[in-house]
């Protein structure tokens, strides 16, 4: 199945908004760390509903914010959620970014990078479009150490890349990005039911759910273009 087929369906069924709500718990902490200055151009890869770019417009006065998504319905939804003419959306693929060399100050991506069909090549593309000193904030919930995420692959027909922390650092460096930080950002906001309510539909034990959200949370890797 193609990215378009899979995610257009997510967009039309409203899952873009559901993801925004859940991802925001950790994404906002990563976004708050980004050294985006007024006037900067920011690119959101796999933008979904586009919330991340809009937040950086509001909080950091980013000059231009572009969201790229492979699913046209995602991009159209995102465009519908804002009137800001400094925010734009583009349909495109992680494999061949339609942006000029050195044209972007910072790249953001939440829960999307691992769908790239050739993640090493996508990192090279990111390094290419970033100006010197620009950052790539790569946030993922699906990664090796988060054992609770492994089964997600079963529910989706697109092959997902499941790197561990070290593989992320190595891949960034191989693509020519310096690694500036790596961190697990806990989700402290999701409601975890009391012990008595387990097992739930999704979780066998409360401990597993606590580990998934409060401990593993979102893996953030930050790269800097030399």
């Amino acid at each position: 199945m193609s990215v378009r087929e899979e995610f257009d369906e997510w967009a039309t069924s409203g899952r873009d908004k559901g993801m925004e709500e859940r991802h925001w718990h950790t994404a906002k902490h990563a976004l708050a760390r980004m050294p985006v200055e007024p006037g900067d151009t920011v690119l959101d890869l796999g933008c979904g509903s586009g919330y991340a770019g809009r937040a950086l417009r509001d909080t950091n006065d980013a000059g231009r914010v572009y969201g790229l998504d492979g699913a046209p319905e995602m991009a159209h939804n995102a465009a519908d959620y804002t009137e800001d003419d400094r925010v734009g959306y583009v349909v495109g693929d992680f494999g061949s970014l339609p942006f000029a060399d050195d044209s972007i100050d910072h790249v953001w991506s939440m829960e999307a990078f691992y769908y790239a069909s050739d993640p090493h090549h996508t990192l090279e593309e990111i390094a290419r479009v970033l100006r010197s000193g620009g950052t790539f904030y790569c946030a993922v919930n699906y990664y090796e150490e988060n054992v609770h995420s492994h089964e997600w692959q079963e529910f989706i027909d697109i092959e997902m890349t499941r790197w561990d922390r070290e593989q992320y650092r190595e891949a960034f460096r191989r693509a020519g990005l310096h690694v500036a930080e790596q961190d697990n950002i806990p989700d402290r906001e999701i409601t975890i039911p009391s012990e008595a309510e387990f097992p739930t539909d999704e979780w066998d034990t409360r401990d597993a759910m606590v580990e998934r959200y409060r401990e593993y949370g979102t893996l953030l890797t930050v790269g800097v273009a030399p």
Partner: protein
Amino acid sequence: MNESLLEILCCPLDKHDLELEDAEYDDDEVVAGDLVCTECGERYPIDDGIPNLLPPDMREETPA
């Protein structure tokens, strides 16, 4: 899309500049038209104000 986007967009295939053709506007917004690569001539459509810059082989899946 806002025309300022053209300053940084490029052809996803060969990374050359794009030119806007047959543009239709709604105020300052480009709502329809084509982005044409100045090098390879590939045409990328703007649908409902959003440029589709998927490589052509991925775009083909798109029902017209």
